[in-house]
C-alpha cells in the first residue's frame, strides 16, 4: 500500500475565549489517499470547518492548534513556518469556500485575480498565465471564458461565481482541495451542475478532495469515504456504502434516520432528542450521551475510536453491530 497523501493525527484546535476554552476540534485523526474523496459531515458547530481550516493553518486567534500533526506527503504542516506555508497554500492544497462573493475581491476583474493566483506560484508571463486561466475556466464549464475574464464578480450568478472559485482552486492542479460547504447556497439544479463538474475534475486530475458539508445526501453521492463529526470529534468514519447502510454510532444512525426522504410520509420523522451541547461546556465522557438511547454508566468515560468492522471506526461503547438495516419502506 502506498503512503497516504494526507495524514491527520490527533489534531486538536482550541479557541481560548473569555468564557473558557472551546474545544472546537479535539483528537481528530484521518488519512486521505491520492485522488480520494472524503466527506466530512456534521451539524453546525461540530468542528468540521475548523478541521478544514486547521489543515491549511488558517485558524486565527483566539484559536490555536494545540496538538497533533498534519502530514502532507510526510511533511508536517502543523510546524511549518509562514513562508513555506505560503508555498503550499493554493499550490498543493487549495480551498473552496461556501460563499464566493466573500472570497473573490469585488473591485478586481476576474482576470486580475486569476493571473495573480497563477503568478504567485509560477514564473509564467502574463500572457501564458492568461492562457492557463482560459483553460481552467473552460474546464469548469464556463462558456466564452474571454468575456468572463473581463468581468467583475458581481456580474456573475451564484453558481457561476462558485465555478470561478473552483477554477481558481484547480489552477495549479493541487494534490488536495478542501471544499467547505461549496454548494450549500446554491439551488438544486445548479448544485447538481457543480457536483458533476467536481466529480469529473477530480477523476481527471487525480486531486484528492475533502468535501465539508452538513448534507449527508450530497456527501453520500459524492464521497468514497465519510467521516461524521459531533462536538469536535470524529465519531464515526468508514466507506460510504458501509457507513450509510450499517452505521455503527447511534448519532450517525439518528442523522440518517431523521432525513425526511428516508421516512414514511405522514408519520412523524424519527428524531434525535435534545440538541447539540455547547463546546464550551461538554458533557462528561461521550458528548452524545445525553441524547443517546443507548447511553449508560460506561459512557461517562470518553470512548476511543475502535475499528468495529474492517475499515469502519467509531467512538462508541455500544455500537450498532449486529443489525443489518432494512431499507425504509417507500
Amino acid at each position, binding site marked *: 500500500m502506498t503512503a497516504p497523501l494526507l495524514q491527520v493525527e490527533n489534531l486538536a484546535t482550541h479557541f481560548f475565549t473569555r468564557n473558557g476554552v472551546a474545544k472546537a476540534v479535539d483528537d481528530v485523526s484521518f488519512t486521505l489517499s491520492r485522488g480520494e474523496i472524503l466527506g466530512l459531515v456534521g*451539524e453546525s458547530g461540530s468542528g468540521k470547518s475548523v478541521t478544514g481550516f486547521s489543515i491549511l493553518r488558517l485558524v486565527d486567534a483566539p484559536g490555536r492548534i494545540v496538538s497533533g500533526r498534519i502530514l502532507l506527503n510526510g511533511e508536517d504542516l502543523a510546524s511549518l513556518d509562514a513562508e513555506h506555508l505560503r508555498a503550499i497554500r493554493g499550490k498543493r492544497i487549495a480551498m473552496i469556500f461556501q460563499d464566493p462573493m466573500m472570497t473573490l475581491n469585488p473591485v478586481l476583474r476576474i482576470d486580475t485575480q486569476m493571473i495573480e493566483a497563477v503568478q504567485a506560484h509560477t514564473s509564467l508571463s502574463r500572457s501564458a498565465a492568461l492562457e492557463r486561466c482560459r483553460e481552467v475556466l473552460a474546464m469548469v464549464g464556463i462558456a466564452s471564458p474571454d468575456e468572463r475574464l473581463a468581468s467583475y464578480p458581481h456580474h456573475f450568478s451564484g453558481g457561476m461565481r462558485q465555478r470561478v472559485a473552483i477554477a481558481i482552486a484547480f489552477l495549479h492542479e493541487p494534490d488536495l482541495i478542501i471544499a467547505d460547504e461549496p454548494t450549500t447556497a446554491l439551488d438544486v439544479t445548479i448544485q447538481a451542475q457543480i457536483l458533476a463538474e467536481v466529480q469529473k475534475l477530480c477523476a481527471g486530475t487525480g486531486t484528492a478532495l475533502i468535501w465539508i458539508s452538513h448534507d449527508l445526501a450530497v456527501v453520500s453521492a459524492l464521497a468514497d469515504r465519510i467521516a461524521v463529526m459531533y462536538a469536535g470529534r470524529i465519531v464515526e468514519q468508514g466507506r*460510504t456504502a458501509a457507513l*450509510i447502510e450499517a452505521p455503527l454510532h447511534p448519532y450517525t444512525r439518528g442523522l440518517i434516520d431523521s432525513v*425526511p426522504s428516508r421516512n414514511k410520509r405522514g408519520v*412523524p*420523522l424519527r*428524531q*434525535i432528542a435534545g440538541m447539540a451541547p455547547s463546546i464550551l461546556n461538554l458533557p462528561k465522557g461521550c458528548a452524545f450521551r445525553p441524547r443517546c438511547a443507548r447511553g449508560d454508566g460506561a459512557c461517562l468515560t470518553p470512548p476511543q475510536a475502535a475499528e468495529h468492522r474492517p475499515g469502519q471506526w467509531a467512538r462508541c461503547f455500544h455500537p450498532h453491530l449486529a443489525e443489518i438495516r432494512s431499507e425504509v419502506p417507500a
Partner: protein
Amino acid sequence: MTPIIDIAGVSKRFVRELDTAERIAKALGAGIEKQTVHAVEQVDLTIKPREVLGLVGESGCGKSTLGRMVAGLMTPTEGAIRFRGDDMAALKGKAAREAALKVQMIFQDPMSSLNPRMRVETIVGEAPQVHGLVSRRQRGAYVEEMLHRVGLDPAMRRRYPHQFSGGQRQRIGIARALAVRPDFLVCDEAVAALDVSIQAQVLNLFMRLREAYDLTYLFISHDLGVVEHISDRVAIMYLGRIVEEGATEAIFTGANHPYTQALLSERPVISTAKRRFTTIEGEIPSPMKPPPGCHFHPRCPHAFARCRIERPALKQIAPGRKSACHLNDAA
C-alpha cells in the same frame, strides 16, 4: 367544500422608477426604460381547509412573494386572494383585522424576525393582548401555555431571543404565530436554516400542531425531501408561474412537466452507491427579462418551436393534476 385560500389570477410586479438623472437622460434620448420585475405572474391556486400545500421552486421563482401576498404582507398588483370567500384586499375595518389574524406567517430566519430587544413573553403575548384575545392579567398564563404547546419550557419566557438556539428560536416564531389563533400558516422556508436533527423535530411539531388545531399550511421550501414528507399537494413554480400542481405522491412518482422531472432527478438523496450527476443546462433566467413563450424553454430538452412563442396554460391532465406544458397537447 369552499377553499380556505383562493388565489385567483394573482400577479405581482415590482417597478423601479427612474431617478432624476435617468429621467433627464431619457428626455435627451438615451434609451433608458424603467425596470419591471415580474415576480409572480397570473397564478391560480386553491388551498382546502386542513390541507398542506407544498410550494417548491428555486431562488427567485417568486414563491416567497406569493407567500407574502397570501399572508397579507404585500398586495397583489393584479388578481385577488380570497380567504374563506372574501377578497382580503376589499375587506374593511374589523372584518379586515380578523381575516388578517387568521393568516399568520413563519419566516426562515428567526433571528431577524424576532425583535432582539423584546423578551419572549412580549414577543408571544403582545399581539393577542392588543387584539383583545386575552386580558393583561391572563397574558402570563397564556404565553406559558403557548410555549408549552411548541415544546419550550415556560420558565424561559423572561429570556431574550439571543439566549436560544436556532431550533428554539424557530419554536418561538411558531408560538408567536399560534398566539393569535390562526387557521392558516404560511411557512416560508421555515426549516431551511436548521440542522437535520433539529429540522426533524420542528417538522414533527408542525405535523402535531396541524392535528391539534386544525391548521392549514402553505409550506414554501426549496427542499423536495421536506416537501414530499409534509405536503398533501405540491405546486412547482418556475420564474413566477406555476408549472405543475397535483397530489404529492402523483408528482413524486410521475412528474409531468420537464422542469419538475429535472428537479426530481437532481435532488440529492441518501444513497449507498456513488452516482453520476446529470444536469439540466443553464441557469434560471432573470425575472426582469423572462424568455417569451414557456419560461423554461431555453433549458428544456424537449422544447420545440411553439414553446418559444406561446405561453402554455396550466391545464388539467388528470383528476386533481395540472401541468403547463405544450407536450401534453402534442401527445
